[in-house]
């Protein structure tokens, strides 16, 4: 009994001690705990990568384009029907289609409080046109681009160029963002160092940590348009005080932070982590980019064996989209077979010229036969294989296996993405650091017309996209496309261009994937568009 009593007493003492200890720990943690998030109007977002380059004209990097949409504005914007709409400026086109007059809205200000002028916009357009291929084509037919007065920009053409408005509303890299004249006068080969814009958010320079964190504050003096938002067109009404982009290199960490409420938005969660989010009732999926991304392979036209069009065709016959997409994405809910080089669900979508094998199971036997007919001598095909970027890691491996099955000898060269970016720019022979094939991805708005689709640039070694396809016929058709006046006309020419591009094997489109963003239910009003957009988004406390 005594033993029992003393045992109970000991247990009581130990329970008391445990409770005391727990209370001390809890009290300590309570003291240490930060104040509850008072700022209910700060959106914390993890984007697909860290922001490092701040000039959206010098680079085509999507994160820098997204940054551009935060702090800069555009003269025109693209709506969800793919139509250019007035944004900073209203426009008029002369009857002969040679003069475009753009009139700036009243009251537009730069973030330093000075008024936006036509001269600023002329300087911005000129800098943009030096970097953008569509802009270069426009400037090739431009007679003059001037500021008629403080609010009027006049573009005079030497000959009609129908896509002028599309170019000024270009939604993805390189977007013609407007900058103050003193900034826009920076040579287009040097990064700007002043981030003054006139967009709905201001860049907070003091809090910028390259690759770690970037902070934007609402620009109180921004005057949004009255129309409802639609893609990048319409009113850019900011409904929060701040937006913070926090870079998290580890996707699992970002998902944990989203689940615990430390962040509100995750732009590009890996597909294999999405099921974890589906079990959390505080999280929702959101497809901000309904056009998705096109994944593709590009061959080098300069050197054997791919300087031979029959061998390029044999390579294309060997590959198929399903194998690539299932390895890359896995879940069929997030990918789509699509033979159109312009992407699917866009006005110019067409299957013209696409070999059925591409969207079926491939045709290794036909590929073997064609290889034999072409006299393939067994030259090993060097495929650049990035191992550090998850969205480009699977394609080279799947393609290599398909090519081997068709009789190619293949050498996969593993490397980091940045090495690939450098290497693919090399026009040297293979023995001197050249290459035969690489893979990359484009968002829909970057391939949806023959003018913006980089792989349809057929200007060869001097002005073409890596791989350097040289086909004057395609170039001539692109000029015809630029002069086409109706959508029907454009569609007909675009189909012919794609037919020719497939004949040339300009590139091998390997299908489309759509990765949804994740967000907490405290956010509302998210917009679809060519980039993740943060105006119109509300955050509940």
């Amino acid at each position: 009994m005594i033993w029992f009593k003393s045992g109970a007493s000991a247990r009581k003492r130990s329970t008391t001690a445990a409770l005391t200890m727990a209370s001390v720990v809890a009290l300590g943690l309570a003291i240490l705990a930060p104040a509850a998030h008072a700022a209910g109007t700060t959106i914390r977002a993890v984007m697909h990568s860290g922001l490092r380059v701040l000039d959206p004209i010098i680079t085509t990097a999507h994160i820098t384009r997204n940054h551009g949409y935060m702090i800069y504005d555009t003269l025109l914007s693209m709506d969800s029907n793919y139509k250019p709409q007035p944004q900073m400026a209203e426009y008029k086109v002369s009857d002969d289609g040679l003069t475009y007059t753009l009139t700036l809205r009243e009251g537009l200000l730069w973030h330093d409080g000075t008024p936006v002028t036509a001269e600023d916009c002329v300087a911005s357009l000129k800098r943009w046109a030096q970097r953008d291929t569509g802009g270069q084509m426009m400037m090739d037919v431009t007679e003059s681009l001037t500021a008629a007065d403080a609010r009027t920009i006049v573009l005079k053409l030497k000959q009609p160029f129908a896509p002028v408005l599309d170019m000024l509303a270009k939604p993805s890299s390189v977007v013609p963002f407007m900058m103050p004249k003193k900034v826009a006068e920076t040579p287009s080969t040097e990064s700007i160092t002043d981030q003054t814009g006139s967009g709905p958010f201001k860049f907070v320079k003091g809090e910028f940590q390259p690759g770690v964190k970037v902070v934007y504050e609402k620009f109180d003096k921004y005057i949004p348009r009255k129309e409802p938002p639609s893609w990048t067109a319409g009113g850019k009404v900011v409904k929060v005080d701040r937006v913070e982009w926090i870079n998290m290199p580890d996707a699992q960490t970002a998902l944990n932070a989203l689940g615990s409420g430390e962040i509100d938005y995750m732009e590009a969660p890996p597909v294999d982590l999405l099921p974890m989010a589906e079990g959390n009732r505080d999280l929702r999926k959101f497809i901000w980019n309904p056009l998705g991304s096109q994944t593709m392979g590009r061959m080098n036209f300069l050197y054997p064996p791919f300087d031979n069009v029959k061998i390029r065709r044999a390579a294309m016959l060997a590959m198929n989209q399903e194998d690539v997409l299932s390895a890359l994405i896995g879940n069929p809910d997030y990918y789509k077979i699509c033979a159109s080089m312009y992407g699917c669900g866009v006005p110019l979508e067409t299957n013209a010229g696409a070999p059925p094998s591409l969207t079926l199971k491939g045709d290794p036997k036909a590929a073997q036969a064609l290889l034999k007919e072409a006299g393939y001598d067994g030259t090993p095909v060097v495929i650049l294989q990035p191992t550090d970027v998850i969205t480009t890691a699977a394609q080279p491996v799947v393609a290599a296996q398909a090519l081997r099955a068709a009789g190619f000898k293949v050498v996969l060269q593993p490397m980091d993405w940045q090495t690939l970016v450098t290497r693919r720019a090399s026009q040297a022979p293979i023995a001197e650091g050249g290459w035969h094939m690489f893979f990359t991805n484009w968002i829909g708005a970057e391939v949806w017309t023959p003018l913006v689709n980089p792989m349809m640039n057929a200007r060869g070694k001097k002005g073409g996209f890596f791989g350097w396809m040289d086909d004057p016929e395609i170039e001539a058709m692109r000029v015809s496309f630029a002069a086409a006046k109706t959508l029907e006309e454009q569609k007909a020419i675009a189909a012919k261009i794609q037919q020719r591009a497939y004949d040339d094997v300009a590139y091998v489109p390997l299908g489309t994937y759509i990765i949804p963003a994740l967000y907490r239910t405290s956010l509302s009003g998210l917009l679809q568009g060519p980039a993740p957009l943060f105006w119109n988004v509300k955050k509940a406390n």
Partner: protein
Amino acid sequence: MLAYFSRRVLAAIPVMGVVALFVFLLLRLPPGDPAAIIAGDTATPAQLEAIRSGLGLDKPIPVQFITWIGQLAQGDLGTSLISKTPVTTLIGQRLGPTLSLALITMVLSIVIAVPLGVLAAWKHGTFVDSIVMAISVLGFSVPVFVIGYVLIQVFAINLRWFPVQGFSNIENGLGPFALRATLPAFTLASIYVALIARMTRASLLDVLGEDYIRTARAKGVTERKVLFRHALRNSAVPILTVIGTGFALLISGVVVTESVFNIPGLGRLIVDAVLARDYPVIQGLILLTSGIYVLINLLVDLSYSLLDPRIRY
């Protein structure tokens, strides 16, 4: 001692010079072009060349080297090619998280590991010794990111005692700082606890077999005094060496832990800079870490004389 200190500091200058030369040359060997990285997908060869020229990368390598050394002599580490931010600013932004995490980790490791090592040595060959050594092997063998994720799952997600990720500077308050530093510090400490505990045990076992320990015991000195005053102090030199090296490693290479806990430290800065071929940043960081290694080695050497009066400089 002062003369020795001065000699060692002066000797560090040529060491740093050699490091600077090697780093500069080695970085130019692997493929990679910051201009191509900046320009992106659609740049033409002419545009790439123009950007390269704008960055000064078209100049001969000796000219680039002399320019960089000239800047260094004026205390200027240069400017990031990618973000156009001064390298000193970038390092300044990242040094705080790294240093504070390294310090907390080391203090935590020493506080836990040294008593564990002493206990294992004292109870040599017993069940206690086996348990301590098993914990050490576990800490050393389990990948650090696994430990990190487990701690996050238990203490941040399930119990909600700590935030999942992030870092808060100490000037924002001790509370937020401690809350965010705790899990990463325990994660990193798992390795160093194992390492220091094993070193303490091994070193102490050597000393416990010495004649003077037997003499002390024979004189009736208490076991605690024998262990902590006579044995531990005399076995501290190798332990201190491990601690010094560990601290230097913590400053230069904890990129996995920094990624798991989203800490904007020097490790991530180095990896990002290497991937982007951001030469000035890489050069600046390697010089900095070399300097830290030299300094820590010097401090460790000097501390030997405090622990062991037989060592004189």
